[in-house]
């Protein structure tokens, strides 16, 4: 069984994995990062999105061995040392963008990638299209879209006031 090493949320980690083990299985079952969820088996739902070497990916679409030597950030890694949350997490709470919480980690990771990759700004339609890879069954997306729009100025450090509700 191959042993692999990688960095998860800033700390080195290693584990023995079968060749067929998926990255999400490594994170959840071997390393205990259970914040990353599995919602489907066809790469449709996005509950397992993590950041790997700066790119957001569905961790069910990658073998664990392919992640050897990489740097991975999961939802747990977004919490600062003082316990405070990332602005995207804050805005999800502020705008009630989660209900059961199951899709939330993947949704937040995708949303951060969406905002980071659009320094020029995001329209509502762009946010909706940008969430193409993530399913939520609880919220109807309305509040997720609002939360992402509200997180954009916080993440880009521009003093754009939040749109009035």
């Amino acid at each position, binding site marked *: 069984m191959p042993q692999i090493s990688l960095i998860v949320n800033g700390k080195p980690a290693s584990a023995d994995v079968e060749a067929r083990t998926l990255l999400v299985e490594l994170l959840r079952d071997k390393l205990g990062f259970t914040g990353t969820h599995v919602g489907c088996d066809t790469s449709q739902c996005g509950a397992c999105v993590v950041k790997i070497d700066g790119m957001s990916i569905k961790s069910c679409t990658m073998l664990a061995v392919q992640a050897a030597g990489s740097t991975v950030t999961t939802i747990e890694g977004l919490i600062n040392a003082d316990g405070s949350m990332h602005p995207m997490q804050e805005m*999800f709470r502020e705008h009630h963008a989660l209900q059961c919480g199951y899709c939330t980690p993947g949704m937040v990771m995708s949303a951060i990638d969406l905002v980071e990759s659009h320094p020029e700004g995001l329209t*509502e339609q762009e946010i909706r299209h940008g969430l193409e890879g993530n399913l939520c069954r609880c919220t*109807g997306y309305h509040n997720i879209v609002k939360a992402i729009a509200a997180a954009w100025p916080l993440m880009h450090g521009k003093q754009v006031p939040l749109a009035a509700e």
Partner: protein
Amino acid sequence: MVVDGIGASVRRKEDLRFLAGRGNYVDDINRPGQVFAHFLRSDQPHGKINGIDTEVASKMPGVIAIFTGEDFTQVGGIPCGWQIHSKDGSPMVEPRHPVLAHGKVRHVGDPIALIVANTKQQAKDAAEAVVLDVESLPAVASLGAALEPGAPLVHDEAAGNVCFDWQIGDAAAVAAGFAKAHKIVKLDLVNNRLIANAMEPRAAIGEYDVSSGEYTLYTTSQNPHVIRLLMGAFVLQIPEHKLRVVAPDVGGGFGSKIFHYAEEAALTWAAARVKRPIKWTAERSEAFVTDAHGRDHVSVAELALDADGKFLALKVRTQANMGAYLSTFAPSVPTYLSATLLAGVYSTPAIHAEVKAVFTNTVPVDAYRGAGRPEATFLLERIVDLAAREMNMDRVEIRRKNFIPKDAFPYQTPIALQYDSGDYDATFNAALEASDYTGFEVRRKQSAAKGKLRGIGISTYVEACGIAPSAVAGALGARAGLYEVANIRVHPTGSVTVFTGAHSHGQGHETTFAQLVSEQLGVPHDQVDIVHGDTSKIPFGMGTYGSRSLAVGGSAMVKAMDKIISKGKKIAAHLMEADVHDIEFKDGKFSVVGTDKAKAFAEIALTAYVPHNYPIEELEPGLEETAFYDPKNFTYPGGCHIAEVEIDAETGVVDLLRFTAVDDIGRVINPMIVEGQVQGGIAQGVGQALLEHAIYDKSGQLLSGSMMDYTMPRADNIPNIFVGTETTLCTHNPLGSKGVGEVGAIGSHQR
């Protein structure tokens, strides 16, 4: 005045753990010594099991045990929780639903063998090595096929595949209404089959403690006590004190996690055989063929009208697909949760409905968000629109003309229910205004100028939530009570833990229920914790479904807090040397009326636990109370939803542009959470109307069996949603709340 009490949009307590990735879902739990299960399932819709050869598989690496249907012949079948009687008085046909298939397989996904191994992959590998000899039998995959004369039988004891043939209402009164009709409109309607697809797939861990003989089941359930009752008493014969059921954080339910599933019983039973905790997590493709499906009704309806467009009588004949076995509440869905709602918001004087429930070689069908009420609403609103068209009347006008007027409450419908309160004109008018209904013609012309078609749809509805009282539910066939339980534990320093029988799987109970406590006891919101989902902690409970948690579970909390306050008054009277009748409790203080003497809630709590100066002869120490609340009636939310779409006639693409919902859900505790519930429900209704459909081919194979084939609504399928409320209070519960979990899905799925 409490800032975090009723009416405040308090941000959710539970979000802190969910957003940090610290939720505690069943698959996140790992027990010491845990092993893994895989269920080998039928890939045939109908077949005779001639043999299951596990010899090679049982010698595969890591395999601990393999069980088949033969191992479960001594335990009970999976029970059904609701019994319907046919017109002729005979009880429904209730075939045995074995834990693992025995003798026959009856749908694709029917479990045949349980493989227990050291790892998930080893269990799956071994499943591949099990040799099945299953002889294919002809299958019936749809209502139509199952009801053909001479159709293959799903169960030998169910002649013609009929489970029951039921009726409600006054057929003679309906015939009289039709006899004097000016116009009769007729509608054939299919309510398409759906799959709930909560984002968290079902999962369970069965565990057995050899020393104590105690079983524990961790499961993705909306109602752990109901699972304990059904599985313990009916399937495995484990007494309650030796069976703990834990439903921790659950990732959405929408009805599909109400039911007792075979996997739960199989894992619990097997854990005692292998003496190790056994964990199973459904893959999504497995969920598609094992989670109970929803809807799947075919109806014919006729509405009789007089010359003015007043409804005279309605008759409805529905065929309802039960699937291959009776799931926990399946028989109640097309009958008492649907046909009884056929009055809707209208004063139709005579109604008669017949429901034929039918077995097919498909996954069992049971309650899905709204459960029967969306089916009734869809039928009613479609036939009302049709009537308007055929009578050449305006569809707004025909509705107004037939609404139950607001001064008619309490209103007895001709089919069993008595609505306690409502104002259908108020929600209707508010929705028409918010959607700018009068401006639609202008917008339609603008679309036409772009070469697009534009349409607007109106749906009014009433629903029945919080099935009750228990005695009535029992008379209608429920095999359980439908009360709710709350235990309020005030700690010595005045903080509070609430143990509720309701279960939160997205609804935000930890926040809203704490608001109730904050309001009534004057205790700060952050000093209140809500505990749910563990039969070892909570006295009892019926769980969360049918939009019942606040109206029934919240009312139980109010009743328990009334007892706390009553006891607190006695303690306060003693401390302040006053008559107990002169003690008033307000804003967290017990005071003597007409004086400035007062004791804070926390002082009374401390006195109760440190009873040095205490009326010990008359009063026990401590401050903890339990209430079981059995409601007097259902609650009846109602409202109006309006959807506006643009259609590209060349491609057929439908663009949902605007959605307006105005609902009367009684008293609102947390407006932010209410909006979220309505928006989420609407997305599911829109999904049913435009995207979702569980399709079986004629042979019984599920064609839309993955998220690549079954279209779930995505962010760009749903518009922004206007949510408004117009309130009339529920008249028979202490909160005045009616329930909000299902209104979104009930009002919205019209096509």
